[in-house]
């Protein structure tokens, strides 16, 4: 809990530091702040406590989610090189501050015990993301992404709020625990029907955030338009936080109402798998491919909530972690390559600009390959166990067909992830040695190694989750 206070303060102080210090220093300071906040987060381990008028609850699960989020933020900061097109007119301190604030929002989303906290957390995160998405002010693509994200995001906020209101109307409470007890103790017949509408609307609101089909339309466009570093931020932190919130709600309060939401979620998860994976196949742009891939991963995660028995959090946590590690690496390499190619080719983010990367940049190529393998769920990488745990978990709850579909779709997944690997290793291309800053390189290898270590010895973190 202290972490969110600290992070807020850090964010504010960051704004001031921007007056005096150069970008490098601020980056280091921000990293330090994140390390401190992670330490603070860990200090709550095994203390299940309620804060802020019982609106905020720290449990080990929420701490784990917060840690994954902060870790992701840490890497995003480490991978940040420049914001926007010209470095001079941007103010890195502000971006770092916004990132820190949005991490606060994300942590609120994973630890809420009251609807207001959920809403506020979501909005802190979203509003920050609208800003970051549009931060490349002169780039029309960035503008378009921002307005799309903003309009659809606020629209969904309206939906979510309407849902929350209806649930409040039926249960007279915003407290998760209260709502849970009330819903459990009331016979379904005596519940007002608008309650069900409310429940569905809340779920829809969160499904939008995790970009489940058919609420995924914004994802590819926004991911593509936003500056890559913020795409990285969105695809890891926003996704993890939103899914944690969804999982918390579904398992916590709506568990007794599963008849209402389970079928829609069941079908939505399958639809998401199909749409995400199939659409990714044809993409020429790595960034857009990763966007669809993130949709498909939402599909896998949704498998865990598509049954009346709720999955254990550990497989979700493991999946989120492995997904986060692999995704940040993929985007990081994309940043480097597209930056290098931006002056040389028309579409620097396409697969074609990766061609021949391995020749002069074996390290980058390896990192990228491992991240692709992890996303594809090939053994030796964390992604394999992530999928494995999800599948076995889902299977154990007797969800058969979606798992079979998911497995078929992961075969499709191999197809598009391998397009990246093929481009890197097997196609001829001219890419000179790309200069990589030390910090960047360290972060890259840290994530890659993490992916492999988790792939070989998953118990390392699985036992904690």
């Amino acid at each position, binding site marked *: 809990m202290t972490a969110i206070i600290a992070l807020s303060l850090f964010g504010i102080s960051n704004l001031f530091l921007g007056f005096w210090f150069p970008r490098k220093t601020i980056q280091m300071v921000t990293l330090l702040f994140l390390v401190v906040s992670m330490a603070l987060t860990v200090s709550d381990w095994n203390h299940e406590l309620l804060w802020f008028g019982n609106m905020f609850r720290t449990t080990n699960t929420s701490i784990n989610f917060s840690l994954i989020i902060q870790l992701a933020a840490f890497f995003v900061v480490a991978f940040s090189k420049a914001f926007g097109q010209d470095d001079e007119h941007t103010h890195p301190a502000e971006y770092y501050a916004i990132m820190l604030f949005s991490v606060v929002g994300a942590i609120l989303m994973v630890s809420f015990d009251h609807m207001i906290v959920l*809403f506020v957390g979501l909005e802190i995160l979203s509003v920050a993301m609208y800003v970051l998405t549009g931060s490349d002010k002169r780039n029309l693509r960035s503008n378009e992404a*921002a307005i799309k994200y903003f309009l659809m995001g*606020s629209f969904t906020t*309206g939906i979510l709020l309407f849902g929350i*209101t209806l649930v409040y109307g039926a249960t007279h409470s915003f407290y998760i625990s209260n709502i849970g007890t009330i819903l459990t103790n009331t016979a379904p017949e005596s519940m007002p029907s608008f309650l069900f509408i409310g429940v569905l609307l809340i779920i829809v609101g969160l499904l939008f955030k995790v970009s489940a089909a058919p609420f995924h339309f914004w994802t590819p466009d926004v991911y593509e338009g936003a500056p890559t570093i913020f795409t990285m931020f969105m695809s890891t932190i926003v996704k993890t936080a939103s899914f944690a919130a969804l999982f918390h709600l579904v398992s916590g309060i709506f568990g007794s109402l599963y008849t209402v939401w389970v079928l829609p979620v069941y079908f939505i998860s399958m639809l998401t798998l199909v749409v995400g994976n199939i659409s990714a196949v044809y993409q020429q742009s790595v960034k857009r491919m990763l966007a669809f891939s993130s949709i498909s991963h939402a599909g896998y995660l949704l498998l865990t909530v598509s049954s009346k028995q709720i999955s254990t959090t550990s497989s979700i946590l493991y999946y989120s972690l492995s997904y986060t590690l692999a995704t940040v690496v993929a985007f990081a390499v994309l940043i480097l390559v597209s930056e290098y190619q931006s002056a040389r080719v028309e579409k620097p983010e396409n697969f074609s600009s990766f061609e021949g990367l391995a020749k002069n940049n074996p390290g980058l190529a390896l990192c990228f390959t491992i991240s692709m393998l992890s996303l594809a769920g090939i053994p030796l990488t964390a992604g394999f166990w992530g999928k494995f745990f999800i599948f076995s978990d889902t299977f154990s709850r007797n969800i058969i067909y979606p798992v079979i579909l998911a497995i078929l779709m992961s075969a499709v997944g191999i197809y598009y992830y391998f397009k990246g690997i093929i481009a890197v290793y097997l196609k001829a291309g001219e890419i000179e040695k790309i200069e990589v800053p030390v910090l960047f390189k360290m972060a890259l290898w840290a994530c890659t190694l993490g992916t492999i270590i988790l792939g070989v010895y998953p118990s390392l973190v699985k036992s904690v989750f």
Partner: protein
Amino acid sequence: MQSIPEIIRTIPLTNYIMLSSALFCIGILGVLTRRNAIIVFMAIELMLNAVNLLLAAFSSYYSDPSGQIFVFFIMAVAAAEVAVGLAIIVMIYRNIQSIDIGVLNKLKN
């Protein structure tokens, strides 16, 4: 002297819900039909206000202040959203001299 909740309870709860829902749906329709970014945004605000109205109604109906507190939160957040939203719209206007959302479809497929 009737207390406010009692007055409010004279009208069945369903009517409040119906009214708010109607407002909410009008908002949605606005979003769907308009192409001007500002008007779309105003429609979204209308949706939020429908929510606010409903929250206030529930709150008063049950004599539970938390609903109204929520309304304040929504207002505050909406204000922040407006700030950001308008900034985005202004930015776009500067770039393309238009705020027609139909024009912005370069990112697709």
